[in-house]
Every structure is written in structure tokens, then in C-alpha cells.
């Protein structure tokens, strides 16, 4: 090897080191947002199989603001994965979108990092207070009163059911009559037993966990106003009577053999929709989009929506927030305000069925008169909007998801044959470990 070629090798080696160094330095040239001569690119982070139904709204916003280009990420991403990624991005202070969606169960977790988010009050959000249901507005405020997020949708609560299976089992199929079948959850279970006696092939409910969540949110809304953590973030999984009674009602339902034992959002659960293996599912407004997406066209017209047992309730719903890592905070805040306006919420409702959190949108004829062809023409706007306004908020603690997983696991172990009492012990023990 001659000296010159040796030198060349050294040069190549040095160059490769330089490239590596440059590659590692690339971390701070944020790909999520860049501006180019007045042009602004805003990245919106959402989650869920159906996304948030904003596609048309982006087009409208871009045509009204020619300097803005909007990119959306996250459609198809599950909430758990989305939240893990977002937590890391927020903690690292880089990589998050300019506008990010925060879900009901996870927004409290970000209160502790409120200094990493733009206080939307600085961008005139306080003037918009009346655009949101009071409890939804408060849900987006940090304990010291900063506006962390603006409400997108609320869950509302209903029961979706397969009218063809109801008919075959000799139950009424009309949604008014079906709603009248179950004034209480105990009645719901009794009807389920009737269904089970007539139909051995299908199960009445998809899973214990979905049933449990919808019951818990309703009971907590009417009772303590919190679930696994009280409002001072003290762990109350073992003490909260609402958790206990929702758990017991669920194990009673499981013991009656009504559950199809399908883990929520799993492949088996998705297959359950396609195969039509269960007759009812606890149904917040966003669930209608899930059903339509999973059951597909083959089941169009077989599903219907009826009032849920008990008195209303809420499960789910999100807020839009602007992380401080955004390079265009002002533009991002404007976009968040636009996407959460009453008109935009109505648009999103039409697209994916997410129930508006704005009282104006809830009274919008387009929402009130909305029917869903897929759900046999059910007046979903009316069904879900009923009671949404009077709801009391349910406080979910910062580690809500972890404790919820532990309690859901205990409920699943009952489906797999464990005794209900032992499972409750597990729920408390593992819930306390998870919420530590």
C-alpha cells in the first residue's frame, strides 16, 4: 500500500467520521416543521384507526391561508403507542407535531409537563370559552388555570346493537323499544340472559372490559366524579365505591355467560365485528366509526343505536394542544382554534362520528338531524347529544391508563375462569402497583 493511497484511506475515514458527526447532529434540525420564505408547514398528530376526520378541514384552511401547509401523522396508530411516543417527544422537547391530540385518559399526565406546552390563553383562547361545554373546557385547564388544550370531541354514551340478531332472538328491534328494554344495567343483564337462552351461537356483549368502562364512566360521573385517582391524585382504586360497583356488575355479566371474551382493540375483537359474533357493544360516539371500519359494508344496516342503560355518561374525547417545541406556535394555535371551532367539529362529526364538544355544534341542525345510514338510519346526533350537555366531568388521574390496564386484566382473568373475589383482590393489588 503506497503512502498516497494510505492518505486517501485516512481522508475517507475522517470524512466518514465527519458524516457520522453530522448525522448525530441532525437531531435538532427538526423535520416536523420548517419554514421557507414565509411558508409554514404545520404537523398535526392524531391517533386512532379512523383519525379525526380533518382531511377536508385541512384543505379549507390551506386555501384560506396560502402560506400554510398541513401534514397529518398518526392515523391508524393506537392510542397507547401514540401516547408513548408523544410522552417521549414532549419530554425530549423535540419531534412532536405543532398541534397534538391529547386524549381524555392521558391529558392529565401532561399537566405535570404544562411548561412544555403553549398556554393557549396567550393566543386568545379564553375568548372561546363559551364555544365549549363547560366540563369539556375545564378538562383542558391545568390546575393553575393554563389553557393546555381545546376540546375536540366528547364520547357521549349509547349502546350499539345488531338488530338482525335481536330479531332472531325474539327481542324488539326498534331503537326506542330497545332503549326501553334496559332502564338499568341489571335489566340490561336480564335481557342478555333472555338473548342467550334464545341464541346459543352469538354472545350478547363483546367483552367485559368495554362493558366495564362504559359502566364505570357513567357511575363515576353520577357519583364521586373520579375513578382510580381522586382529584388530589391519591390512588383510590380499592376505595372508590364506583370502581367496586362497576367491577361487580361486570363480573355478574360475565358470570351470566354474556361476554364474548374479546380483548378490546385486539385482532380477535376486530374479527368479532366481521364475523358478527356478538349482539351489543357499549357505544360512545367514536365507537360508531370503529364499528363501521371493522364490520365493513357487509354489516351495513344490521347495526342500530339505542339509549344506554342508566343516565347518560361520557367515555373518551380529546383536546388539541400546541407543544412549545413547535417553531410556529402562533400559527399552530390558530390552526388548533380553527379545528376545534363549532363548524369544524360539525364537519368532523359528519366524517367519523366524533361527537362535538361545542354546545353550538351540538345544536347545529346538521348534528341534531344527522342520521347514520350504516346504523339503519339511526338519529345518532340526537341520541348522543342527549345528556352530553348536562354531564359532570369525570377526573382521570395521571396514571389512569396503567391502573385501568391492571383492572381490565383482572376482569379478563374472570372471563378466563378466575373467581370474581380473587380477581378483585388482583385488581386492587396490581392497580396499586401500577399507580405507584
Amino acid at each position, binding site marked *: 500500500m503506497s503512502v498516497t493511497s494510505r492518505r486517501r484511506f485516512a481522508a475517507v475515514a*475522517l470524512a466518514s467520521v465527519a458524516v457520522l458527526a453530522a448525522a448525530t447532529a441532525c437531531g435538532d434540525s427538526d423535520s416536523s416543521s420548517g419554514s421557507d420564505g414565509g411558508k409554514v408547514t404545520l404537523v398535526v398528530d392524531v391517533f386512532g384507526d379512523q383519525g379525526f376526520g380533518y382531511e377536508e378541514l385541512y384543505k379549507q384552511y390551506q386555501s384560506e391561508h396560502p402560506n400554510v401547509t398541513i401534514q397529518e401523522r398518526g392515523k391508524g396508530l393506537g392510542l397507547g403507542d401514540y401516547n408513548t411516543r408523544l410522552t417521549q417527544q414532549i419530554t425530549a422537547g423535540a419531534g412532536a407535531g405543532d398541534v397534538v391530540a391529547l386524549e381524555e385518559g392521558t391529558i392529565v399526565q401532561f399537566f405535570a409537563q404544562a411548561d412544555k406546552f403553549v398556554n393557549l390563553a396567550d393566543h386568545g383562547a379564553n375568548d372561546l370559552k363559551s364555544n365549549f361545554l363547560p366540563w369539556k373546557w375545564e378538562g383542558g385547564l391545568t390546575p393553575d388555570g393554563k389553557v393546555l388544550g381545546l376540546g375536540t370531541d366528547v364520547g357521549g354514551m349509547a349502546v350499539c346493537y345488531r338488530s338482525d340478531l335481536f330479531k332472531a332472538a325474539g327481542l324488539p328491534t326498534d331503537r326506542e323499544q330497545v332503549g326501553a328494554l334496559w332502564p338499568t344495567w341489571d335489566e340490561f343483564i336480564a335481557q342478555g340472559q333472555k338473548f342467550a337462552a334464545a341464541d346459543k351461537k352469538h354472545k350478547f356483549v363483546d367483552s367485559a372490559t368495554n362493558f366495564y368502562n362504559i359502566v364505570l364512566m357513567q357511575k363515576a360521573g353520577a357519583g364521586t366524579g373520579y375513578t382510580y385517582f381522586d382529584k388530589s391524585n391519591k390512588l383510590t382504586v380499592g376505595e372508590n365505591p364506583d370502581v367496586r360497583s362497576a367491577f361487580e356488575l361486570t363480573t355478574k355479566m360475565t358470570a351470566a355467560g354474556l361476554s364474548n371474551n374479546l380483548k378490546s*382493540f385486539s385482532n380477535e375483537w376486530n374479527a368479532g365485528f366481521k364475523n358478527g359474533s356478538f349482539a351489543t357493544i357499549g357505544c360512545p360516539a367514536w365507537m360508531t366509526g370503529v364499528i363501521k371500519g371493522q364490520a365493513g359494508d357487509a354489516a351495513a344496516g344490521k347495526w342500530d343505536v339505542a339509549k344506554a342503560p342508566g343516565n347518560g355518561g361520557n367515555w373518551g374525547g380529546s383536546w388539541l394542544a400546541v407543544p412549545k417545541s413547535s417553531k410556529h406556535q402562533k400559527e399552530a394555535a390558530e390552526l388548533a382554534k380553527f379545528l376545534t371551532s363549532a363548524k369544524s367539529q360539525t364537519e368532523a362529526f359528519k366524517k367519523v362520528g366524533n361527537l362535538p364538544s361545542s354546545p353550538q355544534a351540538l345544536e347545529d341542525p346538521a348534528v341534531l338531524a344527522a342520521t347514520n345510514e350504516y346504523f339503519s338510519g339511526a338519529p345518532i346526533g340526537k341520541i348522543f347529544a342527549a345528556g352530553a350537555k348536562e354531564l359532570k366531568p369525570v377526573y382521570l388521574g395521571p396514571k389512569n391508563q396503567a391502573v385501568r390496564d391492571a383492572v381490565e386484566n383482572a376482569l379478563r382473568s374472570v372471563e378466563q375462569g378466575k373467581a370474581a373475589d380473587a380477581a378483585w383482590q388482583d385488581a386492587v393489588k396490581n392497580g396499586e402497583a401500577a399507580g405507584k
Partner: protein
Amino acid sequence: MSSLKTTAPPAAPARGPRPAPRHSPQRGRLLNRLDLRLTPYVFVLPFFVLFAIFGVYPIIYTFWIAMTDRSPLNATISFVGVDNFVELFTNDPQFWNAVVNTFGMFLMSTIPQLLIALLLANALNRRIRGQMFFRLAIAMPIITSTAVVALIFSMIYAREFGLVNWLLDLVGVGPIDWRANRFASWFAISTMVDWRWVGYNALIYLAAMQSISKDMYEAAALDGASRRRQFWSITIPQLRPTIIFTLIISTIGGLQLFTEPLMFTSGSGALSGGSEGQFQTITMYLLDVMNQRFRWGYAGAVALVLFVLIASVSLLNYLLARRISSDK
């Protein structure tokens, strides 16, 4: 720099005559020597730079974070000393459940895996029809992605419409809920691991078998040794170093088992590995603590204990290896 002139670099190779430098011979020689001295370091630098960033720094940081209560939920980080480790060892049944699961699945998958690989390699080492096809075929699973393997197997082991339960039904056995029963889930996950890795190990054994001298087999055959006898008395002893290598590789892989059990369930809460943690491994628990419970400090402690576990099992392997090789 004076030492440069007196001590020759040890790595300097003997070189033939080269054209004399035309300008300033002194300077040229100095540059040349510098070049000889520095170039090797420049060559190895990229690795060490990357290793420092992605290896050393995270390790040191893990030690630090394990002694804090760091969490995205805490505004400040406070030093808690060995509290995390005390909790881990005295008051965390879920962690020890994960340890049992990890070792259980490791034994349940590795032992059959290596045995089958050995028998497969032995079969492929003979003259058979379509030798090349079969040798390629056993290597196929290695190039498939773990996620795809896990996805397909979780369908095969599905409770409602799974292939295995359908076959069991054909022979009159009731369906098994593969995710509810601890040993059933271990078995299912072990078959995933084995499907993917048997071929890999078989290839390694096959390569080693082909380097065994044919003379030994011929001599044994002349002495009247059966094929079986040849396998146990010639092939296996000759393969010892290879077997130890595969054992160590399987140990490291087995103790870090993650994708297969994670993908075995889908939907929310997959990290909990079954309703009662039937198949939650240590790495799954680690992520559960970090991403669901937001206890980053505690997760650091879990990571360090996992490190110690792997190191001690590897040490055990090493001692075993040394003993076997000194037996020879």
C-alpha cells in the same frame, strides 16, 4: 515527538523499496510517521464514537437514573439512592413473575430448539435427494420478520378461529385458550421462537459437521459402528465448541425475549402479557414500568437487574464451556 523517531510503531509492516520523496525529506518522514501512528486510530474511531454515544453514555445514564425518581410526571428529579432496588427485590411480585416467565420460556424453547437443530443438521449432512433445496429451506425462517412470524402464529393459536384449536377439535380435544393458561402460552411462544431459530442453529451445526474429518466416520464404520453410534460418539463430541456457541447466543436472545410475547396478544395493554402476566417477560415489564407507569427511575433499576441476570447466566455458560473444553 522525540519518541516517535526512536520507537518504531509496532504495527508497521515490512515494506519494499519506495520512491524517495522529492521535497523536504525531513517533513515527509514526519508526516509519514504521524500517518502511521494515527491512521489506525482514525480507522477505529467511528466505532468508538458510536459506541460512546449509543453504548457508554446510556449505560452510565442508566446507573444514574436508577437512583432517582425521574418521571415525566415529576417536575423535579430527586435522588432516592437504592430505594428502587430495595423495592424491586422486596416488594415487586410482578417483576419476579416476569423473571420466572423469561427463564421458563427460555428453557422451554432453547432445549428443543438445539436438539431439533442438531438432528436436522445431521439429516442434512447425509447424501439425500434435493440436498440443496432442503438446506436452503431450513434457512428461510431467518429472513422473515419476527413481527410477521408472531402475527401469523398468534392467528394459528387464536382461541376462536385458530388452526391449532381446529386440529385439536378434529381429534376430539376441547379448544385451549392459549393466552389464559400459563404453560399453554409458554408453549405457543416457544414454538414461535423455535420455528424461527431452529434453521439458523441447524445451519451452524451443519457447517461444523462438514468440517469433521470423514476419516473418523470411515474408521468407525469399519469397526462396525452404527449411524446412531457414529452420531453420538463422533459428531456430538466434535461439535462441542459449536454447541456452546449456540447455547450462549440462545441465552442472550432468550433472556431478552420481547417481540414474540408482545405480539402474541394485540390490542390495549399488550405489555402486560396476558390477564395475569402469564407470559410477561422482563423486557416487557421494563417497558410497562417505563411507558405506562412513567417510572423511569424504577425502569432503570429493572434494566440494571436484567443486565446482572444476563451477565451471570453468561458467566455460568462460560464456566460450563471451560469445563467441557478442558474435558477433552
